[in-house]
């Protein structure tokens, strides 16, 4: 407090406290990328030390859209906290819905009817496709291709229309409830989903024809930002970022939840761990999500969509629980501590982008500035999820 502009040295706190690399000489330039840089998708800032066009050191600066979601968890009741989840990661909101609802269900011992489990799988996977579509369009936009995002948004729009039918919203969904989901799927939803999948299957090969083989894209992605497995483990990377490096780690398989064990799907992996592999993994995952939704639509039983015995003013017993699900960006974890009261004692949200962004500093070291933009995009960051 007591901030005095005149007595302050140049720059803000993070620029003043930026420690250049030890061998730095006079011609190094300290540059601010962001917080409003178009490639940062949200408000992320990276302080970089440049030697000509090369990055010598990068330091992400976070917190521009920090909302203290974890504190909100402690002042709201268990149920009141539900809508917050759609706002942590607005692109794959249903996965966050699921992580929190699943944690509370485990803590309180709430049974979920089978139909609700299938509904969750169907809606969560639809949401995963829409999340990957937005990444696909936006990443290519970063790399200078304008058209793909128009195609991506045309399909994403259809998914949002479908999800709107049952959730009532288009982006920040709050659809899952303790013990089920808020509304049953109607015939209209099922038909619209089937129609969409049928058409979307023809779109993915078109995406590949349009973009994947493109020389410019390959030049900007191949051998760029190669992430070795050992480094991924040191940082706790998960999701497509980790799978791009060749490890088939998917929470849906590694720590199975809901009805995923009964569904047949592959976990796509890359070979080299470069930006191109991360790209390929995400596109392949969309095909897998289609397969999952089709199976779930077939296997979905009749019955209630929500457990009617869950008390309005839920008070889970004292204790702790850790629950994880696979989101579009990786492992979403919720660590809850309850003291048996009407509000959580502590809510800790493990966001996958948080760990994935952390390795950016090391990955960007020694690369061209333009490649760093490609690397940043290939990590598929959602800044509100990192800042929470």
């Amino acid at each position, binding site marked *: *407090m007591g*901030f005095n502009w005149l007595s302050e040295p140049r720059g803000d*706190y*993070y620029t003043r*406290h930026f*420690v250049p690399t030890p061998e730095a000489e006079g011609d190094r330039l300290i540059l601010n990328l962001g917080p409003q840089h178009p490639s940062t998708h949200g408000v992320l800032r990276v302080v970089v030390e440049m030697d000509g066009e090369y990055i010598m050191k990068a330091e992400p600066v*976070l*917190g521009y859209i*920090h909302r*203290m979601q*974890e*504190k909100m968890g*402690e002042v709201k009741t268990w149920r009141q906290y539900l809508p917050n989840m759609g706002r942590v990661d607005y692109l794959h909101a249903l996965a966050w819905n699921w992580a929190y609802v699943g*944690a509370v269900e*485990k803590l309180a011992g709430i049974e979920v009817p089978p139909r609700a489990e299938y509904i969750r799988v169907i809606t969560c996977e639809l949401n995963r496709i829409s999340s990957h579509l937005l990444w696909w369009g936006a990443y290519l936009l970063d790399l200078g291709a304008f058209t793909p995002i128009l195609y991506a948004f045309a399909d994403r729009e259809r998914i949002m229309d479908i999800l709107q039918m049952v959730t009532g919203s288009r982006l920040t969904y709050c659809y899952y409830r303790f013990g089920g989901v808020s509304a049953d799927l109607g015939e209209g939803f099922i038909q619209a989903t089937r129609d969409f999948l049928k058409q979307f299957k023809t779109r993915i090969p078109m995406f590949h024809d349009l973009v994947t083989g493109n020389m410019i894209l390959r030049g900007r992605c191949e051998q760029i930002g190669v992430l070795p497995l050992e480094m991924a*483990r*040191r*940082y*706790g990377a998960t999701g497509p970022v*980790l799978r791009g490096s060749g*490890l088939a*780690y998917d929470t849906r398989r*590694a*720590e199975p939840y809901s009805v995923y064990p009964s569904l047949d799907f592959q976990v796509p992996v890359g070979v080299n761990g470069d930006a191109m592999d991360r790209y390929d993994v995400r596109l392949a995952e969309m095909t897998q999500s289609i397969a999952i939704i089709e199976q779930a639509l077939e296997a979905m039983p009749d019955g209630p969509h929500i457990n009617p015995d869950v008390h309005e003013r839920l008070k889970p017993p*004292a*204790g*702790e*629980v*850790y*629950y*994880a699900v696979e989101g579009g960006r990786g*492992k979403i*974890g919720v*660590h809850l*501590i*309850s*003291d048996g009261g009407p509000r959580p*004692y*502590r809510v*800790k949200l*493990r966001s996958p982008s*948080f*760990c994935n962004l*952390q*390795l950016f500093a*090391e990955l960007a070291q020694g690369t061209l500035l333009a490649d760093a933009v490609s690397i940043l995009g290939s990590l598929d960051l959602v800044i509100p999820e990192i*800042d*929470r």
Partner: protein
Amino acid sequence: MKEGVDKLGAVLEGLAKLPGDQCWGLARTDHQRHGIHAACQLEAGALIPAARLLLAEGFFLEDVSAADLSEGVLLSYHFDLYDACRRVVLRLLVPRERLTAPSLAGVYTGADWHEREIFDFFGVIFTEHPNLKPLLLPDDLDQRPLNKRPEERRSLYALLPQEQLVRSKP
């Protein structure tokens, strides 16, 4: 799957070999109920050796969680395996009079930001941390938002299963 069981066993054996006054309350927990396979309460001096043990067995750091309790700030380091889910939590109780803990960033590079976040929210100082600056909160904020008022704090013994809190070997 067997491999994961073996690695968990190896870690538990290694933890049990730590000096008795450094490691207490080492227990397997019910994954079905808590989502955690094993928990271990440590003293500050044993944290880094324990983390090295987990690193050698191939565990990765999922996250570091903290909670303000009446005994102090409880840090929970969650580790997991990539090949099969075996969640191990190392716990460290930091007394309120001296809010310092050793930094894990030298062992797991990814601990860096998790610790900075806890520094922001709880004011715990991590010694030997390479870059302990505010991460999410403004640099001139002098409040620790997740610290509770004294009357709101609950005891460790009221929140965690008893078997995790006694000095015994699994």
